[in-house]
């Protein structure tokens, strides 16, 4: 395990990504201890202040400290991203493996996937939230439903290729049961596209949550997320561009560093790529 991590972190980009993610997560978790401000205390006298020693990233239209809010927002945004990826990955992988491997399940599963993908992401999420009602958990659920088909499609495509390979037939000839062929032999060889897709979904989910919050369908407005901050800051962006810039940078940083870690993980999990590390 130790050797795994040290090899993983050997490349500077992966190291940077992992470090950024860790710092973001720790800061988001520890922000009540670190910041003298609360995320929701209004201070009208201090509204739209430019970055200064007292407010490193300035204040918003209600005088709330942007740095504190960005870090609090990280809690929700990162959690939404991580949960959506986890749910979409599990469901998408299961659907994709079954559709790719069992010819009989292919049509029913993939037609459902096609139907879901026919609608634009955000529209589908809006429709789902209209049914489920707006709450943090329902945002996660709706986005997971939106992104599961993407994962399913990618996994199915890889499964269709891998299941025809000789080592799958060789495994069958050795009497390996079907479930082991699916989850050990085929899944093991589709990890790369899954990880790449997962890192995309993480970034998309953070952005989509921002979009939903902007439309008032996502997280309740009293909870700061990166999306709600950009949404509300937009009205003042000509006077106080840090209101949009700071949460925007946080999104970019989180998505980018996750991508780097995802790349590193993919290279580690593929023995053929690992030897080049």
């Amino acid at each position, binding site marked *: 395990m130790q050797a795994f991590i040290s090899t993983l972190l050997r490349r500077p980009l992966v190291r940077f990504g992992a470090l950024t993610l860790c710092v973001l997560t720790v800061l988001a978790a520890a922000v009540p201890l670190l910041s003298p401000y609360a995320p929701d205390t209004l201070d009208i006298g201090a509204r739209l202040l430019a970055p200064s020693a007292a407010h490193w990233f300035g204040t918003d239209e209600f005088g709330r400290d942007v740095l504190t809010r960005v870090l609090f927002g990280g809690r929700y945004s990162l959690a939404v991203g991580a949960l959506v990826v986890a749910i979409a990955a599990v469901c998408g992988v299961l659907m994709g493996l079954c559709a790719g491997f069992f010819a009989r399940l292919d049509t029913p599963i993939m037609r459902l996937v096609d139907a879901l993908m026919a609608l634009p992401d955000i529209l589908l999420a809006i429709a789902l939230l209209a049914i489920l009602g707006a709450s943090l958990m329902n945002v996660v659920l709706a986005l997971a439903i939106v992104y599961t088909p993407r994962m399913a499609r990618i996994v199915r495509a890889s499964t269709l290729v891998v299941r025809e390979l000789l080592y799958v037939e060789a*495994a069958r000839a050795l009497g390996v049961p079907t479930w082991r062929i699916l989850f050990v032999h085929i899944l*093991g060889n589709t990890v790369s596209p899954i990880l790449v897709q997962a890192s995309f979904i993480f970034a998309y989910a953070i952005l989509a949550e921002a979009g939903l919050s902007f439309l008032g369908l996502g997280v309740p407005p009293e909870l700061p997320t990166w999306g709600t901050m950009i949404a509300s800051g937009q009205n003042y962006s000509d006077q106080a561009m840090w209101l949009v810039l700071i949460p925007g940078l946080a999104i970019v940083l989180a998505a980018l560093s996750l991508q780097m870690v995802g790349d590193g993980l993919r290279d580690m999990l593929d*023995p053929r790529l690992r030897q080049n590390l």
Partner: protein
Amino acid sequence: MNHATPLLEVEHLQTHFFTPRGTVKSVDGVSFSLAAGETLAVVGESGSGKSVSSLSIMGLIPPDAGRIVGGSIRFRRRDGSVCELTRMSQRELRQLRGNEIAMVFQDPMSCLNPVLTIGDQLAESIRIHLGGSRAAALAHAQRMLEMVEIPAAARRLGEYPHQLSGGMRQRVMIALALSCQPSLLIADEPTTALDVTVQAQILALLQRLQRETGTGILFITHNLGVVAEIADRVAVMYSGRVVEQGDVMELFAQPRHPYTRGLLACLPGRHHGSGAARVAGERPRLAAIPGQVASPLAPPPGCAFEPRCALAHAACRAAMPELADFGSGQSARCILRSPQ
């Protein structure tokens, strides 16, 4: 154990594939048998049905593409009971596969899972069939690697397939196949993808292991040199049927079917002073069988080899000749060669 019943008895096996353009009778009435500890070579060119026969025995014909439509495959199990493989469920077959019947494939480069270590792949099959802990399975795996003469077996267990050479991978495949001591080993062109020196090593290894374990080997190949090396008996296949079979020495000395003769004449260096013209100072020309295998979608009405046969006449087009017995176990499917 009853040694009178053969280890494997294939009788009139028919495996057909259903394509949009029609039914392809890849295997159409194949019969052969194999005794314990014996090596039967199945010879034929691409598309003759030799690989489909072996997949039929393993029960690995993809169900959405084709199926066994007739005939029987009887296999004598370790406990002496004889089972009918064509009527077994996939679950029952799975208990036989890798355990009592094992298979070595043609291309060792793509037969091993690239993301699992050699040890994991060996241990997987061992644990499925023999049970036991992972540690015990890995110890067994190491013994198997030593048995197939892989140096530094303990270290190889932790390596991935891409770290091994082709010959080494084929040894690993053989170790995988033999790890549960199968009584039948199907080797589907196991040396075709290897270079000649490694080929010889692998053949010697198979022969040694056969002597030690008494495994019956069904050896599928198109290389007659390999057949002479390893087989006790030969079945020559053409267009989904066995056209000639017999003891390897007798068949090579006196081939009865024109196709077998053609195959033997194709071997370089076999026609000194015989039919092939040798012009002074020139190399002898390589003989070839003219034409190509008839389309499996539209087989000729009579003898399948008739369109390419130099000896063909009208009667050959009328009906497929039956296998005629020439005594001492040799038989051939040709009306010209019938003993009467």
